[in-house]
């Protein structure tokens, strides 16, 4: 999917905010907050997903 343009601003960086390489990891997605479901094996985007899954390729490798 192309980038979606959102007409909203980003907040200003709070005074004194510091982090190594400007990135601070705080949490992560928990296994319990993901549900196993079945994708319909239909359409070009699914087939691209299947190709990546079968050849263990990432999105960026796929883009090239």
């Amino acid at each position, binding site marked *: *999917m192309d980038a*979606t343009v959102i007409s909203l*601003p980003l*907040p200003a960086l*709070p005074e004194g905010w510091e982090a190594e390489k400007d990135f*601070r990891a705080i949490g992560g997605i928990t296994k319990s*907050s993901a549900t196993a479901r079945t994708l*319909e094996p*239909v359409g070009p985007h699914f087939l691209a997903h299947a190709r990546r899954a079968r050849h263990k390729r990432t*999105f960026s490798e796929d883009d090239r």
Partner: protein
Amino acid sequence: MGDSGTRLAVDPNDRVTIGISFGNSNSSIAHLVDDKAEVIANEDGDRQIPTILSYVDGDEYYGQQAKNFLVRNPTNTIAYFRDFLGKEFKSIDPTHNHASAHPQESGETVAFTVKDKAAAEGEEEEEEPAPSTLTVSEVATRYLRRLVGAASEYLGKKVTSAVITVPTNFGEKQRAALIAAAAAADLEVLQLISEPVAAVLAYDARPEAQISDKMQVVADLGGTRSDVAIVASRGGMYTVLATAHDYEFTGVALDKVLMDHFAKEFLKKNPKAKDPRETPRSLAKLRLEAEATKRALSRGTNAAFSVESLSDGIDFATTINRLRYETLARTVFEGINRLVESVVKKAGLDVLDIDEVVLVGGTAHTPRIAANLGFLFPQTTRILAPATDTSAINPSELQARGAALQASLICDYDPEDIEQSTHAAVTTVPHVANAIGIVSPGPSGEEVFVPIIPTDTAVPARRTVQLSVPAGGDVLVKVVEGNTHIKVTKPEPAAKENGESKAAKVEDADEDADEDDSDFSDEEEEEEEEKREKVWKIGSTLAEAAVRGVKKDGKVEVSITVYADLTVVVTARELGGKSAVRGTLPSA
């Protein structure tokens, strides 16, 4: 696909492919012309081809010609058989076969007995050829052979392979039986795909379509069944969240409403005549014409009903207007609305979560049904039906088109490629339960959630957004999880006694709809409604990142990728800027 059973395999280089929708009432065939799916008209000029076979003097008729024989040759006419494939006799519903060849038990399967052979020539006149008992698989094979024949004739080359659509509740045995029946008709089934997904694909494959994230209701309203599915459409990938199947609020039920109406009107004018519903032949005529009148009422606000020798040799002609029809058919229309509502709930969603309602199937042409669904959902929900959206695709063509598109996508695949790509190891994947997004300052300083990856998105997934930085300078990209709830604001207590708001109706429809006799549409304006809105709630914070020195009126692009193991990678950079901030969040 995992369907066992006899299957035909054709060398990909030799394939000629089509898409087939195979319904109990009608079927369609489609192919691709310059990447655009088109439904093929058969020799009779029909694009909706009745799923019926009829035998007369050893000749086989199919489609509309066979349907017409329901009047004069019902016992040798086989109709409404698709759902019997792969089923045992005791588990089928023969309701719709009363006026044509009756299904019977035949070992593990269902069969029909018809006279499909001609009397041998030169023999004694009386010598009737023995009737044949045809299993439902044989019937399906013969019917598919006719569809493939029509497509081959149209394309000028022999069709070898097809993608066929099936309902979401078509079991493994039914799938296997269909594949085997196709193989016996010399047709390779590349893949069976589910009907609602085929319909959605037909829309998404249009050149002007924008692939986006949206929650869809697919309401497939056919002749003998109404099937509804909730589809989470995420970047062109589809996950069915819930389904419901109904056999009561259907096209056939609408025919029945008109049949009763016209029969009564006939009897009023001809009090001594026999009720046309009491003789099979009159009933068959009544049914055919009532259906034609019903279809005409989708196009115009008035329609004629005219049958020669309807009963006791009396001709009958009359007209009906759409309003009258809509009043008579109200129970059926309301049943359809309740069905749709129930599936939304079953998926754990609210009507406010639905972005699009895709109407599919012949009955979806009915303007009132589309309008009623419009009243069920908020105004922002798109109702994709001919009566409510001029850009809607013909609901009778969606499935065949989707099947043709899928056929063209996989026509170069070896059977093993198809098998592997559709295997559970590839299709069954984690879907995020919470949305992932970032935070933007709202007008009064509060934090507003901006979803980037919506709920029910399959992983791996990647989404990219661009936000503005009007003032320039250093900005914060705060990545959080989010979820929605429905906020209800009660109206001021200028109380109404017996009026109920649309919102309350949505919640209590199951109890109320039967008793409530005011019309769906009329209630809308007069009342002060409870205000219901979907609001985002910000959950746990996943990460923070800084993008520094953004120029005034600059833009920042944020990209979030969730991998199969639920690892999240965030990147943020100024658009046109060189360096990006990037970080990884292992699954917690």
